[in-house]
């Protein structure tokens, strides 16, 4: 057997493929003065623009209609007379081709500034500028992956722009950085791509080597075969009731329909941001009601837990005019928006109440980013004055985690967002790929906090659920049940496997598994102890 590299596994599917190392994006060379004259520079520029146009054509053919339309517009801008005129002026002043086109794109980016409708277009212009300059310098900016084959991508971490370029040939992903809640992990879990993240020795993997990506074993094996992959704990498919309900996390009507095809008991987290993040003005109450009614009608049978808007300056809603912040995850976000935008949150609840009446569904509402009992009480009062909801809050801050007992009589339920709770508990930025290992849900600090929330919630007569990524891991879901959680909510793709796990254990067994997990002094030993107890 070849070398074994340890990391954090994502999902349950193993894969074998050949290593494709993705080098970090190379820096673009600095702009300079031309040594070959303006005419020759313009010729070089035209060749580079033609090459980028061809790349955009190829990207367009494998994109959905909306993205393809953006690529069409970008192609048109490459050939824009206004752009080329400005570039020509810079060439005439002695710039090289890269400097001339860079300055021309910057000129338009500056003209577009300060207008929400054009913000994304500025990013598109900068992307184009980068692509043309890279082509001039003969370096690559795209992943340029083949469509067929069995590739295991190896890189530092992958951005949304990178994952958008994944082709069907990508069967596995290995990252040196990034944690279980990184963008890479979330995308790979959703698409069923085998992934192991936080692999410290990923740099030792060489192009073309055959590797086994073994997420269940939290490892990568050089030269390994699928037969060597660690078997996931087999939870027999059963009709038995799960010991606690398993709900689904959704964001759109399409997600709701996908979830309805699973064994999900209702929805544990309906993220409402998608309705607003792309709107340039606030949708009317009628529009919001129609959107919500569509989702409620399509959702799986059972209660539907709706989270009110969870926006911040890193996820800005254009029409709320959110100022830039140095630390957006510690800033004005979630329920804190109520100070400036009370009417917006009230309108959202009004729309949800109308959609609830229209569809006859059971709707629970909860507010994100609550730090004090007073905030929880304020939200509960507002929500109860508007609609016939069960009312709750998200538990993401350590401050509210320690006061769940005081929520008795204030809210009906709480739902723990383990991704953000980990971020705030460990003071570890979810966006910083170097800190991924701290965000492992098996970290003893998190498990102890979850135990306290579960115990205090049960004593206070408050229903406690978990809707973070951690609940999508079937073994961890058993731990959560054993810690006193009353429900879990997972990605639609994981609902059935989590439900099977929770149907194949007794409540006593789950408590024993949770006790085993609590005995671990680090993430690896907590997980090993829990798995050993489960297998007993």
């Amino acid at each position, binding site marked *: 057997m070849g070398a074994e590299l340890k990391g954090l596994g994502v999902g349950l599917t193993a894969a074998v493929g050949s290593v494709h190392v993705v080098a970090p994006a190379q820096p673009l060379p600095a702009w300079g003065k031309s040594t070959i004259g303006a005419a020759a520079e313009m010729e070089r520029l035209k060749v580079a623009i033609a090459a980028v146009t061809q790349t955009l054509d190829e990207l367009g053919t494998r994109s959905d209609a909306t993205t393809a339309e953006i690529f069409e517009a970008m192609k048109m801008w490459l050939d*824009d007379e206004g752009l080329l005129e400005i570039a020509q002026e810079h060439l005439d002043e002695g710039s090289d081709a890269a400097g001339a086109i860079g300055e021309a794109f910057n000129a338009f980016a500056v003209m577009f500034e300060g*207008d929400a409708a054009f913000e994304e277009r500025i990013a598109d212009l900068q992307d184009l500028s980068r692509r043309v300059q890279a082509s001039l310098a003969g370096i690559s900016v795209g992943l340029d992956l083949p469509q067929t084959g069995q590739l295991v991508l190896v890189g530092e971490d992958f951005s949304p722009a990178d994952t958008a370029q994944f082709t069907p040939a990508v069967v596995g992903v290995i990252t040196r950085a990034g944690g279980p809640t990184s963008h890479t992990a979330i995308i790979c879990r959703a698409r069923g791509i085998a992934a192991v993240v936080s692999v410290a020795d990923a740099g030792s993997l060489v192009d073309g080597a055959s590797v086994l990506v073994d997420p269940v074993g939290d490892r990568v094996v050089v030269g390994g075969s699928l037969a060597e992959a660690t078997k996931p704990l087999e939870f027999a498919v059963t009709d038995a009731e799960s010991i606690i309900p398993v709900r689904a996390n959704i964001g759109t009507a399409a997600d709701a329909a996908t979830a309805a095809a699973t064994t999900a008991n209702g929805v544990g987290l309906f993220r409402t941001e998608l309705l607003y993040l792309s709107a340039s003005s606030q949708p009317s109450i009628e529009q919001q009601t129609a959107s919500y009614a569509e989702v409620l009608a399509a959702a799986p049978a059972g209660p539907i837990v709706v989270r009110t808007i969870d926006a911040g300056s890193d996820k800005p809603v254009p029409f709320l005019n959110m100022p830039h912040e140095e630390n957006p995850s510690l800033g004005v976000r979630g329920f804190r928006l109520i100070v400036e935008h009370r009417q917006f949150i009230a309108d959202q609840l009004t729309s949800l109440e109308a959609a609830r009446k229209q569809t006859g569904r059971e709707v629970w509402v909860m507010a994100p980013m609550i730090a004090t009992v007073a905030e929880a009480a304020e939200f509960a009062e507002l929500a109860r004055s508007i609609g016939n909801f069960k009312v709750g809050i998200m538990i993401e801050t350590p401050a509210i985690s320690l006061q769940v007992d005081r929520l008795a009589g204030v809210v009906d339920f709480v739902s723990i967002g383990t991704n953000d709770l980990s971020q705030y508990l460990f003071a570890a930025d979810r966006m910083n790929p170097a800190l991924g290992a701290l965000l492992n849900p098996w970290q003893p600090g998190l498990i102890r906090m979850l135990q306290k929330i579960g115990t205090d919630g049960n004593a206070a007569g408050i229903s406690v659920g978990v809707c973070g990524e951690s609940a999508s891991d079937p073994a961890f879901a058993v731990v959560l049940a054993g810690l006193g959680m009353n429900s879990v909510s997972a990605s639609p793709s994981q609902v059935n496997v989590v439900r099977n796990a929770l149907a194949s254990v007794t409540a006593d067994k789950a408590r024993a598994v949770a006790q085993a997990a609590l005995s671990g002094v680090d993430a690896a030993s907590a997980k090993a102890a829990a798995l050993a107890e489960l297998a007993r």
Partner: protein
Amino acid sequence: MAVFTGEVEVLDPIGMHARPAGQIVKLVKETGYDVVFIRDGEEPTKANSALRLMAMKVKTGEKFVVSVEVDDEATAMGVIAQIQEFLKG
């Protein structure tokens, strides 16, 4: 050749954004006429560059003058009507 003018109003709810600007420039290039957008108090903008048209940042409800250099008035009015159509959103 003569210059004919007409007024258009931007009805698109996001203003003169990427799509209408692209449609207008495509039309101008296909016809080969000199088309210029004139807004009060500003330098006229030649309608041969989508980026320049977007940089005008014309908002919903704003009006501006389109001038077309062409032989006959009917053709000019046809071009202006088409541009108005693109600005309906």
